């Protein structure tokens, strides 16, 4: 069986495509409004120290997302650095 990868596990510099979001209605709405929707490509720019949030770029938007929330987005990493 395939292991599900979440956004939280993506290392900085890695790109990924969003496969699905398993969050509550309110949170998923906000994610979609910021461009985090199934099918979007994203790039993890960095992770803050001390288990802090991630900085993620999707389209022309850069977002800060906490690890707990990033764990609700499952993704498919794809090879190659930032496009």
């Amino acid at each position, binding site marked *: 069986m395939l292991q599900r990868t979440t956004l939280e596990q993506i290392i900085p510099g890695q790109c990924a495509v969003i496969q699905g979001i398993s969050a509550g209605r*309110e*949170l998923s*709405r*906000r*994610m*979609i*409004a*910021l*461009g985090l929707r199934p099918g979007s490509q994203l790039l993890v*720019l*960095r992770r*803050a*120290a*001390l*288990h*802090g*949030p991630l*900085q993620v*770029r999707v*389209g*022309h*938007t*850069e*977002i*800060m*997302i*906490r690890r707990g*929330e990033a764990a609700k987005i499952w993704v498919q990493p794809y090879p190659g650095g*930032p*496009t």
Partner: protein
Amino acid sequence: MKKIALLGMPNTGKSTFFNRLTGSIAKVGNWPGITVDLLSAKILLGGDMVEVVDLPGIYNLHGFSDDEQVVRQFLEEQPVNALVVIANPTQLDRQLALVLQLRSLGLPMILLLNMSDEARRLGVHIDVPGLARALRMPVAELSAKYGQGFPQVRHQMEQILRQQGTPRAAQTGVLQEDDALGQELNTLLRQHVTIPVQIKAGWSERIDKLLLHPWLGLPLFFLAMLLLFEAVYGVGTPLQDALGWTLDTVKTTWLAPALAGFPPLLQNFLLSGIYDGVGTVLTFLPIILVFFVGMSVVEDSGYLARAAFLMDALMSRLGLDGRAFVMQLMGFGCNVPAIMGTRIMRSRSARLLSMLIIPFSLCSARLQVFLFFTSVLFSPRTAPLVLFSLYVMSLLAALLTALVWKRRFSSYEPMLLEMPPYRLPTLRQMFSQGWQQSRHFLAGASGFIVLGVVAVWALTHFPTGVTPAGPDTLAGILASWLEPVFQPLGIDKLLSIALLFGFVAKEIVIGALAVIFGSSNEALGGIISARMDWVQAYGFMLFTLIYTPCLATVAALQRESRSWGFTSFSLLWSLGLAWITSFLFYQGARALGL
């Protein structure tokens, strides 16, 4: 009167557009049932007076965040002639969904694509006429920050107002779910919008490499905060002092002689009650102005979002975010603008929690009291350590408060924050906030502050015929009643009268002590050191540090929270915490034989 509502997602430059459209005449309007400040202004547009309302930035019309509910409520209850929707063209792929949601309300609408200069630079191309046809609404490009395209936008707004005669309220019940809009959204984007997929590593990214560096990020953040603090209070505090000095000079050289013919009590009431009350309000204006100029640089440049990113690991454990930390730090200069500044946090509960902890920041006014006491009662070698311990206590009180109350004020709002690219703030942006906030402070807080000053004046001057602020005045009688409360803290009756003055402003505590002991300011040190030992003095300082910051802070708390319940709660909590801390220290020290 015709009415226009301004809408858009956060970070689209909506407020910048609002300021350009309305000048600096905006006021906080009063809308029944709405609990956040909405700016509105009446302007002349196409020969009619039109009221323009700046609604909070929202991501979604369906959502349940505080701002989203406010916007829905406003649109349902307030009839408008037109909606003006602002979007960032480089992010149209995600922002167009909100435009489509709003269009389904059936109100006349105009779409403004702001930051057109930035979009062009990034290679974003939008077929404006085609998009307008497909959306069946006027679409215009502009740069609200620099003004390009603004006259055309104004003209289009005039036209749309001419077409729509009667204002209408929206029925948000008919809102379509986003799925239904998806098809149209994709078609629109495919046909009329070209956003390059290829994103160049811009200078914004290069700045982030340095400012968000895993090792250097935090030290640079603290350096930036230090510089901001120095800039704001290095300019603001001398201005505040100069204004205070001017007001005092006017009082003694002009006002006092002019009132010499009046009965002494009336003279005193006018000078020490009314005039000093108004003076207290006025001396906060320079610091509020300079504070918001500084904050605008931090916010509009995009650095505030980076501060949130850097501090989030620590602040999330306290139920807060990094922006609260910035305000807490700035509170060490003055609590009042820091409390007003919490409005950058859009979740009400996060804002309230932040407002609850800011008053514990040891502000420059309290520092004056502590400098006096430490220099009188401690040796030059220990005085700095004592002062440092008070700063530590200030942080501990804030930390404890956040930990105790974070559950009660827990925020349901998802903590997803946009990190906009770095931008240069314009002078116009910098001063509009400072100007607006000063006016809001004047309008919202001045009455309460003057009333409070007059009340304390009355307590310390009645009944007539006894020494002002002495044990026979109302304040003295009140202090006698409260003696059982303050005695366990080692604070005697006369000192507790000084605490009553400290409720008005900490700056006047030392002066009040001189009045109470009937001494000059210079001789006060001797009297204090003869009356108190260091344990009593430290207990007194702890109490002064933690209890109610000052009247202006209370007024700011009330104005910003719009709740007397919350304001009283904050007062009681800090009073209680001050008492317990002082009690534990004083009794503990005495038990140890100190």
